[in-house]
């Protein structure tokens, strides 16, 4: 009979991904509600990466080892995780919703004839079972999801859904080395790299004026530039603006761009997809201007104006100039 929860620990180049600790917190939370033991699983060529997890309150740490796990590939990771799951027979498999997990987790779940409850923000256990909550429609709506069928349930948690620093510490969990079978690996990775060094470092900016789809055309960017100048801040953008080539990619805020936390973040015509929010939600004061009152950006805004950015920007620019004297 299936029992327990396993949590997948991600690492890259010898560093544990911080969202892995958030996944540990999610798994511990579920484990204490369901009274199930939590085991952490680390994949690698040896047990070096597993040591850091011993500080956390988990039942045991499985270090699944194979030479082919020295570098990430979806073939090797899916094989290794499948074998770990078949050996441990858990009820739940909890993972962080990272780009790496997104790459192999659906493949892994498919081997068990199912999909992943992906990108969850919450999991609530009750008598009738576990209800997962996930964001749909690019963050505009939340959905409660229940699962059925045979164990295990695969779930990934969004970055920030749980706090890594709230993962419970323990008194030295044991690392169990588990040599693991990995079949043919068809993908050959080359070393990861960063594109030309970022010319603009927005992480130190005190004020950021960011534009999204609502800016409508490249010509209109000048308006936002004037507001940024009046506020003494830098111009930034959400992904679609950089995709369109209207601003260079080093101005992009979000999961694939820069992460910032300025004193003031002004979001103009940005709806607030999670990929953008993770890059700016820790800003001290957040202003959002959007014509859609349900835009998710308002969920994290201190000040909001529901309306046309082209009416707001010129007035705001003039008023700021006046007040600054």
């Amino acid at each position, binding site marked *: 009979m299936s029992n327990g929860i396993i949590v997948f620990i991600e690492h890259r180049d010898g560093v544990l991904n911080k969202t892995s600790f958030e996944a540990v917190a999610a798994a511990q939370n579920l484990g204490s509600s369901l009274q199930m033991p939590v085991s952490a699983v680390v994949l690698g060529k040896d047990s070096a990466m597993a040591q850091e997890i011993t500080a956390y309150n988990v039942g045991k740490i499985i270090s699944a080892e194979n030479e082919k796990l020295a570098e990430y590939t*979806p073939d090797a990771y899916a094989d290794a995780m499948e074998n770990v799951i078949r050996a441990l027979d858990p009820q739940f498999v909890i993972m962080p919703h*990272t*780009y*790496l997990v997104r*790459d192999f987790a*659906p*493949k892994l*779940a*498919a081997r068990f004839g*199912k*999909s*992943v*409850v*992906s990108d969850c923000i919450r999991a609530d256990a009750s008598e009738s079972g576990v209800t997962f909550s996930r*964001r*749909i*429609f690019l*963050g*505009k*709506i*939340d*959905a*409660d*999801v*229940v699962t*059925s069928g045979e164990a295990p*349930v695969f779930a990934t948690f969004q970055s920030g859904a749980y706090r890594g620093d709230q993962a419970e510490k323990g008194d030295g969990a044991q690392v169990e080395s588990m040599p693991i079978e990995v079949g043919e690996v*068809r*993908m*050959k990775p*080359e070393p*990861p*790299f*960063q*594109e030309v060094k970022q010319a603009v470092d927005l992480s130190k900016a005190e004020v950021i004026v960011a534009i999204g789809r609502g800016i409508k055309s490249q010509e209109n960017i000048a308006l936002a530039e004037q507001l940024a100048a009046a*506020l003494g801040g830098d111009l930034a953008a959400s*992904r679609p603006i950089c*995709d*369109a*080539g209207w601003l260079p990619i080093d101005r992009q805020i979000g999961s*694939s761009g820069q*992460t910032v936390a300025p*004193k003031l973040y002004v979001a103009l015509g940005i*709806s607030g997809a999670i990929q953008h929010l993770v890059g700016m939600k820790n800003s*001290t*004061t957040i202003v959002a201007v959007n014509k859609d009152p349900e835009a*998710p950006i308002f*969920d994290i805004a*201190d000040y*909001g*104006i*529901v*309306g*046309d950015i082209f009416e707001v920007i010129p007035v*705001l620019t003039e*008023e*700021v100039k*006046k*007040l*600054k004297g």
Partner: protein
Amino acid sequence: MKIIVLMKQVANKDAILRINKEATWIEEGDLTYEVNESDGYALEEALRLKEKHGGEVVVCSMGPQRVKSVIKDALARGADRAIHIVGDELAHVGPFAAAKILVEAIRDENADLILTGLQSDDYGYAQTGVILAELLKLPHATIVIEVDASGEQLRVKRELESGWYQWYSMPRPALLTIQSGISQIRYATLKGIMAAKKKEIKEVAPAAESSGGSHQRITKIYFPQKMKQTQFLGGGDAKAGASQLAEKLRSEARIF
């Protein structure tokens, strides 16, 4: 090179979403639809690969008759023919069931490459492509932002997090999920629109079980709980809101 592009039709990004009475899904009656953003980029990449290496681009979409507008638009942009898996309920199947249905519809095409977007803008599972690759025993790569198909092996550039990238090589056939922004999307020309009228759209029924295969079910949907108490300014008057905002930024937030 034969390339299949899997495309989904989703609610228009600018649509104001309303939740239905039962709180099980959104009101669809007055909804307008468009192509899923990253699927549009997948089509563009397929068309560019065809221009470079020759071959054929086949579009495959599933759902009710309304998805024909996505298919026709793809044909107008330059896809050669299309497969439409028809069924009203197909817009709402989970990723595992969706992948099974798609596999049965495209298996005999024996494509060299299958492209799709990295996730849908409605359910956002980000899984159908990868599951489909597994069911067809194909290698895959996700969140791809560059494709080099000139060598014997396929070489693709994947986006990692925080501005990092990585190239992967793999044998063909393969499945790739494409990231938005991989290239600039072309518009359909008048000539393309005329030519599309003569292109084949093959309608097929879903071969696999479209219900019951889902292991996750939505019980309720609702608007997210706010993380902050937002002060809304202007009360519908955007210009008044802007003046109040400037004052608040000075007196409350003390930005200047």
